[in-house]
């Protein structure tokens, strides 16, 4: 809080303006367009959708329809896809948390320079191409892939396990791809944790497990929640993972939207899918924003 410092910018409007206008035009405004197109009808033209209003001789006329939304309700493909996306994202988020928490805790308890080295090791993969990392699993999971090959030559299995194009592969892909996003916020919370609180817990007679449940975990809660949102929300709309690792039966809504747009070239239906997805993601996004702002305030 530096009220005076801020006050000194008599023309502070001009400081705020560049990022504000940019985000307003290129982040907020597009949602108005997506909402608009979701009421239009698909045409074979360029752009491939109809107008939803006109300013003809008789003034304003509404030409839009909710047909696209009715269409989504009509075909069980869509709500299966929505349901699947949420289910897969949720389970993968929980697995991610279970894997990430001990890792974050272990790193936070290391001494420098090992702490920053291990943190770097955790972050590094996420700096290489996401696409390539997911692609790497294809070669491992295939029926004639490396894992099946290894298991068969060890004599553990007789015929290959079906791993690629399954729910399992999607869980694996999400956990693999998003693990650093879960580790980082938990780590930043844990590293700030005053270790004397833990020692006080032991001193007062609590066993390690009890100390973890009653002291460490509650104090790292905001990192846990932020990490869960950071994994869950984008995972719901994930495209690359279901496309490369998922099978034809494991539909996720991101892939459905992609196909609607690129394969069927039906922009209005794709827009309607996006609007519906956004409308149920808006609540987690709202809570995520609150948590993220609080975490930033707490740093001060």
């Amino acid at each position, binding site marked *: 809080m*530096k009220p005076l410092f801020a006050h000194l910018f008599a023309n502070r409007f001009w400081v705020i303006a560049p990022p504000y206008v940019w985000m307003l035009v290129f982040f907020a405004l597009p949602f108005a367009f997506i909402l608009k197109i979701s009421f239009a009808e698909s045409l074979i033209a360029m752009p491939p959708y109809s107008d939803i209003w006109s300013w003809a001789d008789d003034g304003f006329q509404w030409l839009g329809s909710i047909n696209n939304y009715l269409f989504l309700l009509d075909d069980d493909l869509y709500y299966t896809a929505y349901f699947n996306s949420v289910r897969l994202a949720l389970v993968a988020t929980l697995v991610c948390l279970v894997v990430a928490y001990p890792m974050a805790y272990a790193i936070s308890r290391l001494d420098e*320079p090992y702490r920053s080295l291990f943190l770097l090791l955790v972050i590094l993969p996420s*700096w290489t191409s996401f*696409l390539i990392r997911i692609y790497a699993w294809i*070669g491992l999971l295939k029926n004639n892939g490396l894992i099946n090959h290894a298991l068969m030559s060890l004599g553990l299995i007789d015929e290959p396990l079906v791993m690629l194009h399954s729910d399992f592969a999607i869980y694996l892909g999400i956990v693999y791809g998003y693990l650093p996003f879960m580790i980082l916020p938990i780590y930043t919370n844990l590293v700030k944790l005053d270790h004397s609180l833990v020692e006080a817990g032991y001193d007062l007679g609590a066993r390690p497990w009890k100390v973890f449940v009653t002291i460490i975990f509650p104090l790292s809660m905001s990192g846990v929640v932020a990490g869960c949102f950071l994994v869950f929300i984008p995972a719901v709309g994930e495209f690359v993972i279901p496309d490369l690792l998922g099978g034809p039966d494991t539909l996720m809504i991101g892939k459905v939207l992609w196909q609607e*747009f690129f394969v069927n070239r039906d922009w209005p239906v794709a827009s309607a899918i996006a609007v519906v997805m956004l409308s149920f993601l808006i609540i987690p*996004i709202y809570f995520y924003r609150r948590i993220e702002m609080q975490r930033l305030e707490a*740093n001060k």
Partner: protein
Amino acid sequence: MRAARVMLVAGLVFLYFPLLVLIIYSFNESRLVTIWTEFSVKWYIELLQDEQLMGAFFLSLQIACATAFMAVLLGTIAAYVLVNFGRFPGQTLFSSMIVAPLVMPEVITGLSLLLLFVGLSELLGWPASRGAMTIWIAHVTFSVAFVTIIISSRLREMDGSLEEAAMDLGATPLKVFFVITLPLIMPALVSGWLLAFTLSLDDLVIASFVSGPGASTLPMVIYSSVRLGVSPKINALATIFVGMILVGSFLVWWTMQRWQVYATDKKAAEG
């Protein structure tokens, strides 16, 4: 604690094992990724001769550089505004627009931006065509969020009395920003730049939506080739990627360690 360490090691193996396999098999003579035949660099030679791939690579590189600069510029201002300006009209909207792109599913961002560009070109005639320019705008939009978060947490860690002291000694606010604030948050600016660069270089979904005919970025080319099946050429490309990033980050980490004295100085002085 021991269980946590075991998990850390297991998690790291999990993270690196697929990459390691990828790298090893990029030197395999055979087209098959399961059977090792003999060492060869022929896939690297083929990669370098693939004009489409190399063209996409240089396009992606250009977009990523331009994105990183713009994102750091906007992100620095945004972070400064969020940390130092207190309340201002429309602040909630501002912070929402900064944070939401962190979690927004890519298909939504991509589709909505495409519809914006199409709508705008109908209304205003701009953008006339889609390509590198629209991809750049889209990439800046979603990477600003990440850059802002990195820089604002550094700004918040900074001792506010340093800026006050500079002002007390006669420096105007603008001068304080350039002479005191900027040098002190420079590490965050560098990591923000690198992050925006890799985010842009990595993006498939959003670029696919907002790109036009003729402008194919590297991930778009990789994707179309990956869909056809595993190819050792992609392994070779991945190896170059991973190698570059590993070497780059270890250099950064190494310099950071050597600057440790400087870093601890800063901590002591900021107390």
